[in-house]
């Protein structure tokens, strides 16, 4: 029995070194699978240190862990490769963030969460910003607990039709984050199961963090004075 297991692991590692990960992922027993993965990782390390033979697979070179590039640059290139046209090229370098096309955000978000070498399992913050000139932005800070890398994603949308795919069911923490952004900036997250105001009362008018926000004059008969001279 034990011989069988060792043999299976050895075979899988051999295949894995040749770039065929399906064999390992196809092992049904969870314990054997994880052992095989560990053995593969070790074998790759040994091969790398000795400098001989087997090249790392393409995916491995794109891994943010062992590169000098910033995570943003690596993830930008990776997304461009996986989903062409999903990222927006902007001026300057990618030190700060990656701009993602709102139309491909659904595919990109699922890739970020599930991809083997991205593994962004932690959504840390969503910020909504009105950056003026009719553009609203939703900014996401992602962190990978397992691979320890961090990126920032920004999605610009027009103020006339501010709709972004909701990632509430991909990262559950996104539920309240998206509600707060909707509350303050008025970005509508499509597919959110409970998109209502977070902090302000439900019957409040307008979105306070927009540049063109005008405070309402009364709320349920209570005056909200705009000009305050006569009050003083």
């Amino acid at each position, binding site marked *: 029995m034990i011989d069988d297991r060792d043999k299976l692991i050895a075979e899988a590692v051999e295949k894995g070194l040749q770039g065929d990960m399906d064999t390992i992922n196809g092992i049904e027993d969870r314990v054997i699978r994880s052992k095989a993965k560990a053995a593969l990782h070790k074998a790759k390390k040994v091969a790398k240190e000795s400098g001989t033979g087997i090249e790392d697979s393409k995916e491995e070179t794109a891994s943010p862990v062992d590169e000098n590039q910033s995570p943003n640059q690596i993830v930008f290139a990776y997304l461009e490769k996986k989903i062409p046209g999903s990222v927006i090229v902007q001026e300057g370098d990618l030190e700060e963030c990656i701009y993602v096309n709102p139309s491909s955000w659904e595919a990109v978000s699922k890739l970020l969460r599930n991809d083997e070498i991205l593994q962004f399992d932690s959504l840390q913050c969503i910020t909504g910003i009105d950056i003026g000139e009719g553009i609203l932005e939703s900014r996401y800070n992602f962190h990978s607990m397992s691979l320890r890398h961090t990126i920032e994603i920004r999605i610009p949308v027009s103020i006339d039709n501010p709709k972004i795919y909701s990632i509430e069911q991909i990262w559950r923490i996104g539920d309240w984050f998206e509600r707060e952004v909707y509350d303050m900036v008025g970005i509508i997250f499509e597919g959110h199961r409970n998109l209502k105001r977070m*902090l*302000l*009362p439900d019957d*409040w008018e307008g979105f*306070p963090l927009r540049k063109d*926000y005008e*405070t309402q004059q009364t*709320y*349920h008969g*209570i*005056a*909200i*004075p705009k000009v*305050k001279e006569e*009050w003083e």
Partner: protein
Amino acid sequence: MGVLEHKFQDNIVVEKLDKLLGWARSTSPWYFQFGLACCAIEMMATAASRHDLERIGMMPRSSPRQADIMIVAGTVTMKMALRVKKLYEQMADPKYVIAMGSCATSGGPYWQHGYHVLKGVDLVVPVDVYVPGCPPRPEALIEGLLKLQEKIQKQRPLTKIDS
């Protein structure tokens, strides 16, 4: 009791009923435990052992039905304003309100730009005593409570008012 003990046949106090009621009301005003912001910390400190509100007969109640005084301690947002009003309406008469701190008095630091802050709790409920400060120290709150006690004692709930 010492020197007075066992010196009298029957204990009789002669006083106007109005004044007696005022005395009774003023010496055990239970307040509504109702903190909204940083002022609530000072209110808690006032109730805690160093300043000890219970020595003037005040204890916090968690239900508006059992409270005589509502201390509005902190920033009242528009969302909360409706709740404050509802809570005030749930209190039994006679009821009194203390606006504690600059937020409850006038909106405080949110006077100019706080679109969501009520500019003084007196817009929704009648206020008896304003305690300034940001936040007021426990001594200031106690001063306000003593002023309120004076006010209660001066009230004449039974006296006929000539119209």
